[in-house]
C-alpha cells in the first residue's frame, strides 16, 4: 500500500497522521526556540492525540484499515511476517483512550512543563512516547507491537529522568522503572516467540488462526501475562509504579498512569480474547487472583500514603487490579458457559479502563497543578488549597469522586457494571464459582470502601482545612492551559458517568459483547441480566430533592445570615497552629493499626522529658512508617542475591592468566571429548 492510497481510508490516514505529527513534534521540539517550544510542540502532540482519538474511534466503530506497513531491513521470511499497523475494534478503543489522555496531558504540559521537562529532549521524548503508545494497540503483529511498546518505554524513561539533577530519588526510580519495563518487554518477547514458533508467523491473524493449545499455549500465556502484568502494574510486579509516577513530571505521570498501564490491559485482552481464546479455566482464575490481590493491596497502600502522587500511583494498581478481576471473571464465566453475564463483566472491564483513564488523568494533572503551585506533593504539608486554587480544587474533587466510584461519575458506572456482573453469576451448579465469586465480591467491596477513604483523605487533607505550611498558604491557581486540561478531564469524568448507555454500547463492540443497549437516551440497559442504570434520571431525582432544600436553606439564610467568627469552636481556647490539624498520616493511623501486619507498619513515639522532672514532657515525636511487604520480601532479597552473584562472578575474572588459560584448556578438552564421544 502506498502513501497515495492512504487518504481514501480514515484509519490509514489517521495512523499516518499520527506518525507524521509525532515526527513533526520531535523536529519542532528540537528546532523551536525555547520560548515557543511548549506551545508548538505541545499543540502538535495534542493534535496527534486527537488524531489517535479519531482514528481509534473509527476503528472501534468498525472502520477497518487496509494496514500501514512498516518497512524493515530484515528479510520477511518465516516466521517474520510484514510489520503492519491496522487496529481492530479492541485496538481502536485503546488507541482512542490513549489519544485522549495524550491530548489532555500535552495540553496540560503546555502550561506545566518547565525546566528539563520543557527542554528539547523533554518534548521530543514526550512525542515519541505518545505516538509509540498510541500505536501499540494499532499493531497487527508481534514485532510491530514490540516496536511501539519499546518506543513507549524508551520515551517514558527519558521523560522520567527529567528532574534528575534536582532530586536524587529520580535516578533510582528510573532504574527501577527501566528494569521492570525491560522485564515486561522480555516476557513479551519470549511469549510472542513461543506463539510465533507454534503458529509459524508473527501476525495476530496467523496466531489466532493456528488455534494453539497445549504446553505452548500455557507457556505463552504465563509469559505474556507476566509481561503485561508488569506493564500494567499488577502485584507483585507493581513496584515501579509508586516510584516512577511520583518522580515523573506530572503530565507524564498522568499519561503513564491513565494510558500507558492500560496497554498492559489491552495486551491481556488481546491475548485472552483474540490470540488464545478458550484457554483452560485456571487461566481465568489466575487473572482473578492477580487482579483481586492487586486491587486490595494497591488500595491498602494508597490509603496510607501521605505523598499525593504516590497515593495516586498505588490507586492505579488498585484500578488495574479491578480491571483484571473483571476480565478474569468474564473469562471464567465464558468457560462456564454463562456468556451473557460474561459479556457484562468484559464490558465492565472496559468501562473501568475508560473511567480510570478519565479520572486518573484529572487527578494526576491536579496533583501536578498543586506541585506547580506549592512545590509540595506531601499531603502533610498541604491544606487549604480549595480557597486558593478553586479550579484545581473542583476538578480534583470531581476526579476524586470518580476514583471513589460515587455517582454520577464514570467510576460509579464502571463499578456498578462490575458488581452487577458478579451478582448475576449463576453459581449454583458450580462449586468453583460459588467460592470464587463471593470472595471476589468481598474483595471488590473492601477495595471500594478503602478507595472512598483514600480519596476523602486526599481531597480533604490536601484541599480543605487550613494551610499547613507557608508554601501551601501561598499557592496560586494554575494557568489557562493547565486549567483547560483539568476541566476537560473533569467534564469527561462526569460526562461518561451521565451517558453510560452509548459509551457501553461502543465498548461492547470492542469485545463483541451482546446484551448492552441504551435506554432513555443515555441510560445503560444490561439486557442480559435485566438491570438498568439511568444516571440522568437519578440526577433529575436528586435535583428534585436538592432544589427545594437549597431554596429552603436560602430562605432561612436570608432570615438568619451567617455570622463570621474568628474561631468556630476552639476546644475552649485559641487555635494554636496548623500543626494541630489532622494530617494525612494521622488520618490513616486507625487503618494502619487495623492492617498493621500487611503494611509492615512501624510506629515510633519518642518522648523528651523535661529536665525538672521525668513526669513533665518537653517534646514528643511520633513517627509512622509503612513499607511495601512485597518489595521487602521479594525484591530486596533478589537484588541482594544479584549483588552476591556479581561478587562471586568476579572470581571468573580475577586477573590470573593461568585461570584464563585454564578456561580455554578446559574448553579444548571438553570439545575433544565431545567430538570423540
Amino acid at each position, binding site marked *: 500500500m502506498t502513501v497515495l492510497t492512504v487518504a481514501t481510508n480514515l484509519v490509514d490516514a489517521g495512523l499516518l497522521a499520527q506518525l507524521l505529527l509525532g515526527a513533526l513534534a520531535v523536529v519542532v521540539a528540537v528546532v523551536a526556540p525555547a520560548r515557543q517550544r511548549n506551545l508548538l510542540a505541545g499543540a502538535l502532540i495534542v493534535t496527534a492525540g486527537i488524531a489517535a482519538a479519531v482514528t481509534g474511534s473509527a476503528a472501534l466503530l468498525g472502520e477497518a484499515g487496509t494496514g500501514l506497513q512498516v518497512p524493515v531491513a530484515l528479510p520477511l521470511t518465516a516466521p517474520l511476517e510484514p510489520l503492519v499497523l491496522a487496529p481492530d475494534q479492541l485496538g481502536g478503543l485503546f488507541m482512542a483512550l490513549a489519544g485522549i489522555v495524550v491530548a489532555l496531558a500535552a495540553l496540560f504540559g503546555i502550561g506545566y512543563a518547565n525546566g528539563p521537562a520543557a527542554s528539547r529532549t523533554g518534548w521530543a521524548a514526550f512525542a515519541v512516547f505518545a505516538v509509540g503508545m498510541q500505536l501499540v494497540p494499532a499493531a497487527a503483529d508481534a514485532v510491530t507491537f514490540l516496536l511501539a511498546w519499546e518506543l513507549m518505554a524508551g520515551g517514558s524513561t527519558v521523560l522520567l529522568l527529567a528532574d534528575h539533577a534536582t532530586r536524587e530519588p529520580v535516578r533510582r526510580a528510573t532504574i527501577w522503572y527501566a528494569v521492570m519495563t525491560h522485564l515486561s518487554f522480555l516476557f513479551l518477547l519470549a511469549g510472542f516467540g513461543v506463539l510465533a514458533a507454534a503458529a509459524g508467523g508473527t501476525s495476530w491473524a496467523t496466531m489466532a488462526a493456528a488455534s494453539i493449545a497445549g504446553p505452548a499455549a500455557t507457556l505463552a500465556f504465563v509469559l505474556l501475562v507476566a509481561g503485561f502484568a508488569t506493564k500494567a502494574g499488577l502485584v507483585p510486579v507493581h513496584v515501579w509504579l509508586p516510584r516512577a509516577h511520583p518522580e515523573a513530571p506530572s503530565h507524564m505521570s498522568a499519561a503513564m498512569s491513565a494510558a500507558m498501564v492500560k496497554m498492559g490491559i489491552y495486551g491481556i485482552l488481546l491475548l485472552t480474547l483474540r490470540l488464545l481464546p478458550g484457554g483452560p479455566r485456571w487461566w481465568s482464575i489466575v487473572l482473578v487472583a492477580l487482579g483481586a490481590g492487586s486491587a486490595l493491596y494497591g488500595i491498602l497502600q494508597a490509603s496510607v500514603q501521605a505523598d499525593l502522587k504516590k497515593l495516586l500511583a498505588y490507586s492505579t494498581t488498585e484500578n488495574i487490579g479491578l480491571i483484571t478481576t473483571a476480565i478474569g471473571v468474564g473469562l471464567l464465566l465464558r468457560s462456564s458457559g454463562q456468556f451473557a453475564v460474561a459479556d457484562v463483566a468484559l464490558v465492565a472491564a472496559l468501562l473501568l479502563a475508560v473511567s480510570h483513564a478519565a479520572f486518573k488523568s484529572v487527578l494526576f494533572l491536579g496533583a501536578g497543578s498543586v506541585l506547580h503551585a506549592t512545590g509540595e506533593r506531601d499531603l502533610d504539608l498541604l491544606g487549604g488549597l480549595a480557597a486558593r486554587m478553586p479550579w484545581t480544587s473542583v476538578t480534583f474533587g470531581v476526579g476524586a469522586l470518580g476514583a471513589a466510584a460515587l*455517582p454520577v461519575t464514570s467510576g460509579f458506572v464502571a463499578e456498578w457494571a462490575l458488581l452487577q456482573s458478579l451478582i448475576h453469576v449463576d453459581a449454583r451448579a458450580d462449586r468453583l464459582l460459588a467460592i470464587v465469586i463471593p470472595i471476589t465480591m468481598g474483595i471488590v467491596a473492601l477495595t471500594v*470502601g478503602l478507595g472512598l477513604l483514600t480519596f*476523602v483523605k486526599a481531597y480533604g487533607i490536601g484541599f480543605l482545612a487550613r494551610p499547613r505550611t507557608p508554601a501551601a498558604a501561598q499557592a496560586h491557581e494554575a494557568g489557562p492551559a493547565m486549567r483547560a486540561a483539568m476541566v476537560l478531564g473533569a467534564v469527561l469524568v462526569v460526562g461518561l458517568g451521565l451517558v453510560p448507555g452509548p459509551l457501553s454500547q461502543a465498548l461492547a463492540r470492542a469485545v463483541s459483547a451482546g446484551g448492552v443497549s441504551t435506554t432513555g437516551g443515555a441510560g445503560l440497559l444490561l439486557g442480559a441480566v435485566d438491570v438498568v442504570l439511568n444516571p440522568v434520571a437519578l440526577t433529575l431525582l436528586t435535583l428534585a430533592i*436538592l432544589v427545594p432544600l437549597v431554596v429552603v436553606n436560602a430562605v432561612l439564610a436570608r432570615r438568619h445570615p451567617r455570622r463570621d467568627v474568628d474561631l468556630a469552636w476552639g476546644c475552649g481556647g485559641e487555635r494554636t497552629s496548623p500543626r494541630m490539624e489532622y494530617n494525612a498520616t494521622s488520618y490513616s493511623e486507625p487503618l494502619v493499626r487495623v492492617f498493621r501486619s500487611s503494611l509492615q507498619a512501624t510506629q515510633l513515639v519518642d518522648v523528651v522529658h523535661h529536665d525538672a522532672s521525668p513526669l513533665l514532657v518537653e517534646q514528643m515525636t511520633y513517627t509512622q512508617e509503612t513499607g511495601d511487604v512485597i518489595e521487602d520480601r521479594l525484591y530486596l532479597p533478589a537484588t541482594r542475591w544479584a549483588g552476591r552473584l556479581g561478587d562471586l562472578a568476579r572470581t571468573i575474572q580475577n586477573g590470573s592468566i593461568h585461570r584464563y588459560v585454564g578456561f580455554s584448556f578446559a574448553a579444548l578438552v571438553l570439545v575433544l571429548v565431545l567430538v570423540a564421544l
Partner: protein
Amino acid sequence: MTIASVAVVLIQLVLAVAVTPVLIGVMRTTRARLEGRVGGGIMQPWRDLRKLLAKEPTRAPGSTLVLTAAPILLVASSLLLCALIPLASTLALASVPGDLFVVVSVLLVGTVALALLGLESGSAFGGMGSSRHMVIAALVEPTVLLSIYALSVPAGTSALAAIVQARRADPASLLNPVSLLAIFALVVVVIAETGRLPVDNPSTHLELTMIHEAMILESGGRDLGWLELGSWLRLTALLGLVANLALPWGIGQDAAPLTLLVGIGAITVKVLVLGAVLAAAEVFIAKLRLFRVPELLAGSFVLAFLSVSASYLVF
C-alpha cells in the same frame, strides 16, 4: 415513569420527614425510661430541629463552600435513600429502580459529605472523627454488599423492590439460614452506618470515643439542624429497609390508595418498634473500643459471606 410511582416517592419522602423526629423521640424516650429518667418527650427532637434551623450558623476564616454544602448534601442523600428504598410500597420509578448498588452509593455520598465536613474545619477533632468514620465505613462496605448480595441471589435481581416482593411472595425464605445470616449482618451494618452503640455513642461528647459528634462539632445553628435531620433520616431509611427485608408484610404492591395506606401504617409501626427495640438493646451494651470495632465488622463480614455461600451451596 408512572404517576403512581412518583406519588409513592412523594409519599415516602413526606412520611420519612414526618416519622423521623418521632422515631428519634421514641428511641430517646425508651432509653430514658429504661435508665430511670423522664426524658425530653417524644416530640423533643422535632422541637430541637425547629430551633436549630432558625438559628444563625457561624463561619470561621478560611472556610469553604463545604461548610454550607455538606449538611444539605447529607440531607439530600438521606432523602434520596428514603425515595429509593421501598418503604411504603414496592412500586419503583422505572428509570431509577431502587438498585442496591445505587442505594449504597447514595448512602456513601452522605458519608463522604460528613467526612469532608469534619476535615473542612481544620480542627483536630473534626479530622479525628472523619478518619474514624471513614475507616468504619470502609470496613463496613464488604458486609453491606455481601449481605444484600446474599438476599439478591434468590430473587435474581439487585432491585430492592423486587427483592422485597420476592421475599413476601415466599415467606418460607424468611427463616432459612441464608436470610437469617444476611439480616443479622445487615443489622450490624445499619448500626455501624448510623453511628449507634456499640460502634459509636450518639450521645457522647467524650473526645476519645466520639466519631459522629466529632465531625459536626464545629457546626452550629442551621448547619447543625440539617446535619441532625440528615443523620436521623438515614436511620429511618435503613431501619425501614431492614424492617421490610426481615418482615415484608404490609408493604404496598400497587397504587391503590388502600394498600398504600396500609403500607404507610405498616412501615411506621415497623420502624418505630424496631427503633424502640434498638434503643432498648443499647441500654445493655457498652461502646466498643475503636480498635475492637474491626473485629465486630469482620464477624459480620463472615456472616454475610457465609450467607452468600449458603445461598449457592444450599440450593
